[in-house]
């Protein structure tokens, strides 16, 4: 095992959880937070080394590590990164670091348990992105549930317990369909080749056999339900507004920033890679659901009175763009979807942070109770504006690159007749995004100011660190989208050529 090891990256957070959670660690808030921040910073830097040593011209898995784990049924502890998972791993460590910093003001009790759970969660998410084995993927997928449940239910607000259990049950119900599909694919492979394996490298590679179309579509739907709950796709989305609204700010950042991406990642990894025939048949459904997501969620966001709910619905709307890009089934479309996942990860974390910043000062999230904050806290306004503009796709910011790429891909797509029309409808939905975000900015930061907000203080150094680093990412990759796309284009390339072959 070399020094740069995925096993270390994935298991290090678990070790941190044990260190913090154990009775040996001082039960002292500052010490715990410092340690957590330091550890998360180390994880982030460590993950950047993978980027440094990554060979972007190659499409397959790199940094492979594989141990026989449970040999009798073909389970391996095997980890690997390709371009797609690498950027999501870095996004994860980045946002976990920011969430640890953001926890200072938002978390006021039970620090030990809180940071332990954050690190268990980190381990699970990193494991999902880095697994090269379906069993391992499923294990990490399930491992993420309980920490998230407790994080929402203990430190949340409002109907936190209801939201937390709703999140768990939705995800768990989705995941049992995924398990059925995993087992179906596994069994089919065994039936055809006599080899028991969960290895993604083997199952996702072009195979000597083909699935019967009905089988493939059923397996596709099994995976799709699990990922549709996570992404979320509109009929399965109702857990998201609840969970996001009731979770504390750092957890909302992680939920929107990373956990939703697990859905998108799963769709690309499982549905596109393992079941390429089914996606050709079902691409129209993906696109239609995507368009519904964009328009429907944007319309709801338009009438939200609660700031956090508005951001939550904008998340759903933006995830529709991911679906649209995937349904386009060409390099531009799928790359756009991946780009959108990263862009949304950063932007939504920023938006939730802004909501948290405002809530800390005013203790309200109702838009009509706010107003004129821009006069007393101009810096908060600047940051909010940049992030909101990035979200609505202003050129030179990260959201623009993502949306343009996706819409371009969808428009030139030949995945099915009529996708152009749907793309245009979706593009109209993006105008709605501009509407609700700008309107929100105006109502929160301008207009008449209530007397009680006179004493609201401007941004603190802590918050500047978080928002500045997010804005940095937003502008850098808005200006140089190639810096991001270069990493994952070869991977997307091979996925698409596998589908179209």
């Amino acid at each position, binding site marked *: 095992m070399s020094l740069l090891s995925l096993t270390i990256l994935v298991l290090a957070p678990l070790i941190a959880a044990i260190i913090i959670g154990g009775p040996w660690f001082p039960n002292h808030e500052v010490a715990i937070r410092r340690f957590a921040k330091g550890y998360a910073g180390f994880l982030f830097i460590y993950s950047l080394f993978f980027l440094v040593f990554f060979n972007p011209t190659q499409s397959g898995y790199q940094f492979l590590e594989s141990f026989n784990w449970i040999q009798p049924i073909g389970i391996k502890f095997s980890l690997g990164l390709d371009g797609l998972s690498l950027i999501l791993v870095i996004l994860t460590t980045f946002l976990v670091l920011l969430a640890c910093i953001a926890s200072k003001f938002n978390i006021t009790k039970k620090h030990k348990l809180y940071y332990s759970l954050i690190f268990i969660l980190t381990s699970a998410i990193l494991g999902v992105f880095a697994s090269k084995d379906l069993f391992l993927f499923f294990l990490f997928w399930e491992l993420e549930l309980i920490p998230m449940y407790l994080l929402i239910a*203990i430190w949340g607000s409002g109907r936190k*317990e209801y939201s937390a259990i709703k999140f768990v049950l939705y995800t768990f119900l989705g995941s049992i369909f995924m398990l059925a599909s995993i087992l179906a694919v596994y069994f089919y492979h065994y039936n055809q080749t006599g080899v028991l394996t969960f290895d993604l490298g083997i199952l996702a590679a072009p195979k000597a056999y083909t699935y019967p179309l009905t089988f493939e579509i059923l397996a596709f739907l099994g995976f799709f339900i699990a990922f549709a709950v996570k992404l979320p796709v509109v009929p399965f989305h109702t857990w998201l507004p609840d969970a996001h609204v009731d979770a504390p700010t750092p957890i909302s950042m992680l939920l929107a920033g990373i956990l939703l991406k697990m859905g998108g990642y799963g769709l690309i990894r499982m549905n596109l890679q393992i079941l390429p025939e089914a996606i050709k048949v079902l691409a129209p459904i993906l696109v239609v659901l995507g368009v519904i997501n964009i328009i429907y969620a944007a319309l709801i966001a338009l009438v939200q009175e609660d700031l956090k709910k508005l951001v939550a619905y904008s998340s759903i709307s933006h995830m529709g763009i991911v679906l649209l890009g995937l349904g386009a089934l060409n390099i531009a479309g799928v790359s756009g979807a991946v780009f959108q996942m990263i862009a949304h990860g950063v932007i939504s974390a920023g938006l939730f942070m802004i909501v948290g910043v405002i809530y800390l000062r005013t203790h309200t999230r109702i838009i009509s109770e706010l107003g004129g904050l821009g006069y007393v806290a101009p810096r908060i306004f600047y940051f909010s504006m940049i992030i909101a503009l990035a979200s609505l796709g202003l050129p030179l910011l990260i959201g623009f690159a993502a949306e343009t790429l996706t819409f371009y891909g969808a428009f030139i797509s030949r995945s099915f007749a009529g996708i152009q029309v749907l793309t245009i409808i979706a593009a109209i939905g993006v105008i709605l995004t501009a509407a609700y975000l700008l309107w929100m900015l105006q109502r929160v930061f301008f207009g008449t100011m209530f007397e009680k907000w006179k004493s609201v203080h401007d941004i603190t150094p802590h918050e500047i660190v978080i928002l500045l680093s997010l804005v940095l990412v937003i502008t850098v990759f808005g200006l140089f989208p190639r810096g991001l796309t270069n990493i994952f284009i070869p991977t997307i390339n091979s996925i698409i050529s596998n589908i179209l072959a």
Partner: protein
Amino acid sequence: MDLLLDIRYALLPEAIISLLIIACTVLTFTLPNKKQNIIYIVSSLGALLALISFSYMPFFAEINALWNNFTSNTFTILFRILILIGTIITIQMSKKYVSGYGNSIGEFYTLILIAALGAMLLAGASDLIMLFVALETLSLSCFALSGYTKLDKLSNEAALKYLVIGAASSAVLLYGFSFIYGITGETNFVTISNYLSGYNANAVLIIGFLLVLGGLGYKLAAVPFHTWAPDVYQGAPIPVAAFLSVVSKIAGFAVIIRTLTIFLGIIPIWSLSIAVIAILTMTIGNLIAINQSNIKRLMAYSSIAQAGYILVGLAIATQAGISSMIFYLIAYLFTNFGTWTAIEIHINHTGKDSIEAFNGLAFKQPVLAAGLTICLLSLAGIPITAGFFAKFYLFQAVALAGFQYTWLLIIALINTAIAVYYYLKIVKAMFLRPTQELSQEPVISPSKTLNIVLGFTVTAVILIGVLASPFISLSELSAIKIDLSSALSFIQ
């Protein structure tokens, strides 16, 4: 065959337990009340000795002992080992519990050992009469054990209910045996099996089979033979409830696997009838568990549901299915004992057995809460625990059995999702609810033994979850002793 040779090569642990029972009985009558705790030490050491004695037996040989009444092979040995481990854990759990019952300490351990002997003989029985005698040995001592707290109304009710339903189900089982004996004229498994090969199933045989299934289903608390379980688990002493929900079930599964596979390939509704019972058991167990407010009753329904999952492995009638059942039972043994131990510690402390009593436990006794949480997550099948892997292995086996069992797989999967809800209910109480009383004198002083048992079981739960490989190999090694060859010819 020479009886002594039989004992030496096939029944060494049972012989040790028998001697131990005699020793404990004598000690119970001779020792003064104050010194009865010696029996705890004697029975612990004796059971441990019996466990060690397995290493002096030929592990891989197939030995038919006691004039073909008893079979010792890897399958029965593994089950007997599990039963003994369960018994040792039960004895440790009992130490604190019985210490309050001055003059009847010895009889508790004696009865546990008799039950263990019955369970071990049941696992290896290969003759209908031997099976019945072993089953009654187990059952009768369990009846007495559930009524151990003589002055407690609930305990009395439990014992009576258990006795009446147990007697009825024994009658059902015997009636089923009589049909089988009537057709074949044999009581030995092997000769019955030989007689039945090539036999065309008729209504009489099917009725006999269903009666046997029902009679044995009672031991597993399979629906619709489950009604005794919640009341008995609630009323019986906690170590006894744990014993019933684990050891007695393990023995039940051993005998149900070995008995029912005789009819494999002959009874046309073999898979279907077991699958239906499995589905009923897990679904009804899970659905009723949702609304329970008493932790013991919740655990009763939970273990009913768990038995349902395990039966799925039998319904598919494959080697991998049997193997996954065995692995599941290994995981279940440690998980369930861990849960019951945590519950016992908590009840000793508070004297209450409602789920509400667990409120805020995570911040009062974080270690206990962490242990209980791990066990509950293992029961729910959430990683990284033995239970997660057991469920995965089981479902994997169902998937490998072919597409004709997809419906069974889907129903079992949906059930796991239902179960998550009520297991999380306890986790929720421990982590989310405010503490009721901050400092409270424990009702029964804390016990070191119980803490050690909890530590041991929780460690095992995690270790089996992480290092499942050797346990799977072990399960496979045992499962090959079950002859399923007739299933293949039947399906084709």
